[in-house]
């Protein structure tokens, strides 16, 4: 170890992103001044990305229990849910926002790689992916560049890796112009009892690093993700990692093979903060220590310094603790797949991590003090209600003029062409969605993705949802709506919601008004997750999504929800089936246009509260839709969301080139009826012979409903007037995004 004079000072600690009190605490823990390597270790491990230091107090208030939970939040790399029949589903969502802002292709690609490693490190084979993307003003050349880069990055990585991308969301708003959001979700299946754990124990057990060699890419990525984006951020380009889906595919197969072989004590992927994160988290969990020789780590370039090897976020690597005496089995498997497999150390009983290079001890730190739940700092941040919140609440619907006679067509056409409403086909067709023989939506579209679980009758039903405009208007209500919408999508597909994962994208937590948004969102998520009995299984927190010029992004707590569909025959689709089927709205029309795309974009009114939402009503409506599906009383179900009723009607009409004729409600403003985004409403179609049974079923549950009209051959008709032909609306809807990006 170095002499005292050469040791770094508080100034260096601050440059690494540590606070003065954190520097003091490190000295207390070590009983001496840290050297540069040790200081670097603490700076990444105590960054928000790894330690959740600014969020954990509130995250702990979220519900995490249910009889189905095999691995709860914080226990493993991803949540693990019991599907029944001896099968488990590991699923998680994670952000890769900061890297994607600078280098959209690699940033997004490595986001996909990272989330999949979280799944297969548990011994689960990924079977489906989703993603949730948010970009700035689509008119800007920079936005177009970001969209194309991110979509190509996700496609190239996921397609080669060989797991289908079965759904997702894309949203545009000016607030994301500097900070796009890239959230990637993956779900995998394992046999219960065969799951691997991210743990290390057993003195003398060998520690292996496997997969790609370690390079200088991504050094300090976790710290980088824990600060604001500035004009100087592009100087941090080395903090962006480079992905290799071919290596990931080999690593997947080799990892599942070695887990199956049964010689693995513990395994963890190397994501944020690389080797130091895996060694410390696995050791802390197993209450053991490790001696690691950094000279043995395969590197891409010579003369890498200890902190570079420890912090490198080179992709496609894993740390594996193997049962002593079975080293040859591990080596044989990785040799088969032509991957590195080097023993770099062994497990000790010291509970300390001791790193050597060329025979010299270069760092000596207690594992537990580095990690969440151990010695990592926990902060209660100050929060304050921002002024805009009350301003937005003052919005009165009467201040906006209702649609004039004949204006429906114009507003409808505007929305069909709006990038937030228009089909995301241009994006989806760049992702392989049919590999794996599991996507049940290809010819039978549903609100949520329905993915067959091979070797069982079951399907998983998955969706990602968040309308961040609602969350901005009212964090608590908006986040509860995000959970409710996710559940509604799953219910409308025939599934039963069982658990969520979250990706919490916010601005700088040291800004009290931003932290207020975070606290509100957590409260809303808690409330809704308790109501739907969908515990939170984990996810990630991404703060600092803001720039010096444009302020924070909309608070965006993306909800990734998992549901189960027990029988294929219970799958519900969203498309109108036959001319003459009756169209109903389950739920009530409300005189509300707050935070709708219509109000925000067509009318240009930015300040309004979140849309009408009552949690109890939502639960009741979802229960009603579930019973209609169970009793085979409906032909289609589609939830009303962005764009409101008329957009939902159009979306149900497109797949089979149908039309509709409906009547509006004279008691409700026309714009609210057609374009309002009040929650808890589902559009269904009913075969005429089922009409009586359908109505009786809803009446027996005292669920409100309205007969809207009938499915027709081609035109979209409201109150006897043609709003659009199916063909012209379809042309707009399916090509608008592509046109806007060119």
């Amino acid at each position: 170890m170095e002499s005292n004079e050469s040791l770094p000072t508080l100034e260096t600690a601050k440059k690494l992103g540590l606070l003065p009190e954190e520097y003091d605490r490190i000295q207390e823990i070590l009983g001496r001044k840290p050297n540069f390597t040790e200081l670097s270790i603490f700076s990444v491990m105590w960054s928000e990305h790894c330690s959740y230091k600014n969020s954990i107090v509130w995250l702990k208030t979220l519900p995490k229990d249910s009889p189905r939970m095999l691995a709860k939040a914080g226990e493993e790399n991803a949540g693990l849910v019991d599907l029944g029949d001896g099968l488990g589903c590991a699923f998680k969502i994670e952000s890769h926002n900061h890297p994607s802002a600078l280098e959209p292709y690699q940033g997004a690609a490595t986001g996909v790689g990272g989330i999949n490693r979280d799944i297969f490190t548990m011994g689960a084979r990924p079977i489906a992916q989703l993603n949730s993307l948010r970009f700035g003003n689509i008119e800007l050349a920079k936005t177009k560049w970001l969209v194309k880069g991110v979509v190509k990055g996700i496609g190239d990585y996921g397609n080669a890796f060989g797991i289908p991308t079965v759904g997702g969301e894309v949203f545009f708003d000016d607030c994301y112009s500097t900070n796009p959001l890239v959230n990637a979700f993956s779900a995998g299946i394992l046999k219960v009892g065969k799951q691997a754990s991210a743990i290390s124990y057993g003195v003398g057990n060998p520690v292996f690093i496997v997969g790609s060699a370690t390079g200088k890419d991504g050094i300090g990525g976790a710290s980088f993700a824990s600060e604001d984006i500035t004009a100087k951020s592009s100087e941090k380009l080395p903090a962006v990692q480079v992905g290799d889906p071919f290596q990931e595919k080999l690593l997947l197969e080799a990892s599942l093979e070695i887990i199956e072989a049964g010689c693995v004590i513990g395994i963890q992927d190397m994501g944020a903060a690389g080797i130091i994160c895996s060694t410390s988290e696995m050791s802390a969990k197993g209450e053991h220590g490790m001696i690691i020789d950094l000279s043995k780590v395969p590197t891409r370039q010579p003369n890498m310094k200890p902190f570079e090897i420890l912090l490198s976020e080179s992709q496609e690597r894993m740390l594996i603790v193997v049962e002593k005496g079975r080293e040859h089995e591990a080596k044989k498997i990785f040799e088969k797949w032509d991957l590195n497999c080097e023993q770099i150390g062994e497990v000790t009983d010291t509970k300390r991590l001791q790193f050597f290079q060329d025979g010299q001890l270069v760092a000596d730190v207690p594992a537990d003090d580095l990690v969440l739940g151990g010695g990592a700092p926990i902060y209660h941040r100050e929060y304050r209600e921002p002024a805009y919140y009350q301003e937005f609440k003052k919005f009165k619907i009467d201040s906006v003029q209702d649609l004039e006679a004949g204006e429906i067509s114009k507003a409808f056409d505007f929305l069909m062409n709006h990038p937030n409403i228009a089909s995301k086909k241009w994006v989806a067709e760049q992702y392989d969605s049919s590999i794996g023989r599991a996507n049940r939506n290809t010819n039978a579209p549903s609100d949520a993705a329905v993915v067959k679980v091979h070797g069982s009758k079951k399907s998983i039903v998955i969706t990602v949802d968040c309308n961040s405009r609602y969350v901005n208007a009212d964090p608590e209500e908006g986040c509860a709506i995000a959970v409710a919408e996710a559940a509604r999508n799953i219910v409308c597909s025939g599934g039963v919601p069982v658990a969520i994962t979250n990706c919490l994208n916010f601005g700088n937590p040291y800004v009290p008004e931003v932290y207020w948004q975070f606290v509100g969102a957590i409260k809303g998520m808690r409330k809704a997750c308790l109501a739907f009995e969908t515990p939170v299984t984990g996810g990630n927190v991404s703060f600092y999504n803001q720039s010096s010029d444009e302020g924070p992004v909309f608070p965006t707590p993306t909800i990734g929800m998992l549901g189960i569909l027990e029988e294929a025959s219970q799958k519900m689709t969203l498309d109108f089936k036959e001319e003459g089927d009756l169209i109903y709205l389950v739920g009530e029309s409300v005189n509300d246009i707050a935070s709708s795309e219509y109000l925000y974009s067509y009318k240009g009114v930015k300040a309004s509260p979140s849309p009408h939402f009552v949690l109890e009503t939502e639960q009741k409506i979802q229960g009603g839709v579930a019973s209609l599906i169970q009793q085979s009383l409906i032909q289609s179900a589609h939830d009303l969301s962005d764009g409101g009723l008329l957009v939902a009607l159009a979306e149900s009409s497109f797949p089979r080139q149908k039309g509709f004729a409906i009547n509006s409600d004279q008691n409700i403003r026309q714009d609210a009826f057609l374009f309002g985004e009040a929650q808890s409403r589902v559009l269904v179609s009913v075969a005429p012979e089922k009409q009586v049974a359908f109505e009786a079923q809803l009446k027996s549950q005292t669920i409100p409903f309205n007969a809207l009209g009938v499915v027709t051959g081609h035109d979209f008709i409201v109150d006897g007037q043609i709003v659009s032909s199916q063909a012209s609306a379809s042309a707009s809807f399916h090509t608008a995004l592509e046109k806007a990006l060119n």
Partner: protein
Amino acid sequence: MKFGVVVFPGSNCDDDTVGVIESLGHQAVKLWHKETSLQNCDFIILPGGFSYGDYLRSGAIARFSPIMDNVIKHANDGGYLMGICNGFQVLVEAHLLPGVLLRNNSQKFISKNIYLKAATNQSLITQSLDLNNAYKIPIAHAEGRYFADEKTLEDLKANDQILFYYCDENGQVNDAANPNGSLFNIAGICNAGRNVIGMMPHPERAADPDLANIDGLEILKQLVL
């Protein structure tokens, strides 16, 4: 019939292919690329994927895998050999099939259901397909634009080696129904000996009633009639 599905590093449709063959009631084994034995298989399939990452040209490296010597010998001896998607790319790189597969004219990866029409009944895989029917099955590739020089094309036509065309849902072969810019909408071909088959679309992905996508089953059933 015993099928062998070759697994190159980066192959990712091997499980799908094995699964579908087994669902047809036939045996399918995986053949690891580092091995040399074909395990007495009657029919060899090179599956889809990104062999060796496809960082050079798709399929360019896989043809040098150890197992390929015996795969080529099997084909030269008249044994059945079929390449799907990346497998088709490997077969043209290995000169077992004529022509090349270029980057799609959109320059993008394309994943969607397309319609396919059999061009002839004079091959194993099209032997009893309805020549007037449009079969709906998925494509998923970035390099699927079939191209060949005029002489090769003349030979293909003269010998009836074109097996599949991209068409619209009414079976019309036209530019609008061509997803990737392939010459004459060519989606699949065979060699002059008719025992080596290549196609870009994925019949194995449309062979399960659970997926409401089943037209690929009709095509694959031809192999085991």
